[in-house]
């Protein structure tokens, strides 16, 4: 019986960890939908936003101020990227844009560490960090931290969904996502839209960075962990917000379960690749993802 409880404990903690992947994946989806750019730098943006936030905290600023400045920096970053990179690569092949974002990612990582240093920065924003024990004899442990993180992630997704459905900017974004040229022709300013999505993605990155930084410390490895958002996208489909959420949960739970139940037979650490290999098999059988639309090709 307790084994079953243990199973659920692993499953839940995996899903909670998965919400973090979802958050990063969400940033990817936003940018991909609005500009067709597969933004490899999203993971680095998580690291960079968190570095800025923690850096200002360490300078003694209050948390709200630090967060506001960090947001302002992410907006400035969005502006810079649009001006210096995206604007010059309009109408280029997706693969070129993708490689450009790899360059952007390297630059941002170097820039962040150049300013804030490469040490691990501990971060505590007051998210409760005790454990609850539920079930008979407390057979199952739930980290309050995980739960709070999941709640924050859920809130963020809801806010974004409302933003997209009920605001003018949201409608414009969806129009751009559908067809760039058509959007341009009805007078939606494409460049501004890009700045806005990159800013929103920067904001999402900040939230993800704060939550992740509180757990792992703000450090270089965040940008590598954030790469796990890529398999999440493969599962969820690149254009689907619900897909990003569900994909994150599946990947999070899947890799935790695999690590606990299969890992010991192979010397452990299969968490490192499980998500990617799962995504790869997924690609073989359902390339458009769980929620993605099947694309009809024309000639």
């Amino acid at each position, binding site marked *: 019986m307790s084994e079953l409880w243990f199973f659920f404990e692993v499953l839940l903690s995996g899903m909670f960890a998965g919400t973090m992947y979802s958050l990063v994946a969400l940033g990817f989806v936003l940018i991909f939908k609005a500009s067709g750019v597969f933004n490899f730098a999203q993971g680095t943006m998580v690291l960079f936003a968190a570095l800025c936030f923690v850096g200002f905290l360490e300078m003694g600023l209050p948390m709200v101020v630090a967060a506001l400045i960090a947001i302002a920096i992410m907006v400035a970053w969005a502006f810079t990227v649009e001006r210096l990179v995206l604007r010059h690569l309009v109408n280029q092949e997706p693969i070129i844009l993708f490689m450009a974002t790899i360059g952007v990612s390297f630059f941002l990582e170097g820039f962040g560490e150049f300013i804030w240093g490469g040490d691990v920065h501990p971060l505590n924003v007051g998210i409760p960090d005790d454990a609850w024990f539920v079930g008979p004899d407390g057979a199952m442990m739930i980290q309050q931290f995980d739960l709070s993180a999941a709640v924050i992630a859920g809130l963020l997704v809801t806010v974004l969904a409302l933003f997209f459905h009920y605001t003018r900017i949201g409608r414009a974004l969806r129009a751009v996502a559908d067809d760039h040229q058509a959007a341009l022709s009805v007078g939606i300013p494409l460049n501004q839209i890009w700045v806005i999505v990159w800013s929103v993605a920067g904001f999402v990155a900040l939230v993800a960075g704060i939550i992740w930084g509180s757990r792992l410390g703000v450090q270089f490895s965040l940008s590598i962990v954030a790469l796990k958002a890529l398999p999440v996208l493969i599962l969820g489909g690149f254009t689907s917000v619900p897909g990003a959420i569900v994909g994150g949960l599946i990947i999070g739970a899947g890799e935790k379960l695999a690590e606990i139940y299969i890992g010991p037979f192979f010397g452990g650490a299969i968490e490192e690749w499980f998500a990617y290999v799962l995504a790869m098999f997924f690609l073989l059988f359902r390339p458009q993802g769980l929620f993605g639309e099947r694309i*009809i*090709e*024309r*000639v």
Partner: protein
Amino acid sequence: MAEAETLNAPEVGGAVQRTFGEPVLTLENIGLGFGGVKAIDGVSFEVRRGEIMAIIGPNGAGKSSMLNCINGFYKPQVGTITFKGRTMPAMDPHFAASNGIARTFQNIALFRGMSTLDNLMTGRVLKMKRGFFWQALHWGPAQKEELENRAYVEHVIDFLEIQAIRRTPVGRLPYGLQKRVELGRALAMEPEILLLDEPMAGMNVEEKQDMSRFILEVNEEFGTTIVLIEHDMGVVMDISDHVVVLDYGRKIADGTPDEVRANQQVIDAYLGVSHD
């Protein structure tokens, strides 16, 4: 233009009636849908050896989808295609290409990063058999094969009068020339049936005349059967022997240009029916 006149001659005189051999390609009751939308609905026709056939119809009538079914890019859900003595529910693109069906595209689908010569040489891919080893050496049989195919491609280049742009990356060529290179790539495959998807779209009168001349010459010199989609009715009626008219995915007429021109349904489809 002398060509244009000779081209009109049979029309004007109405005396020259070309005759054609057996059907090379038969489509039977083809049906194709995307989700709920029916692109093609129960269309049948046959293409005879050596003829120039045109598929016409208003936008969205299913013309391009029809070509896509013929060379296997789309798989129809209903119906059969008979080609080379084989009756199949759908064509396989590789089978089509290796048995002499070549095509051009409505929106030019050239390999933009490659030169004109290389684009034409890709048309010869199926004719080249030498394996990896010889390719890596680029010597002996591989070189011999390369040169033989180069000679054929040069023949096509001469035919289409594109010698001057041999080494130019096709991405830099003007639209009309790109269309011509695309035709060249299809010709390099030595096709038995040539599918042309709006070969004259967006061209000026002179370019259209050139293109018409090439199509007629290909048909005459190489005996290639041609199936084309075209919106320019003047051109269609001038050069084709056989016209199929589609509307909303259905065939509404099938016959010689004159028969089709006189068909009431066709007139309705193009001009709209008055409801009074």
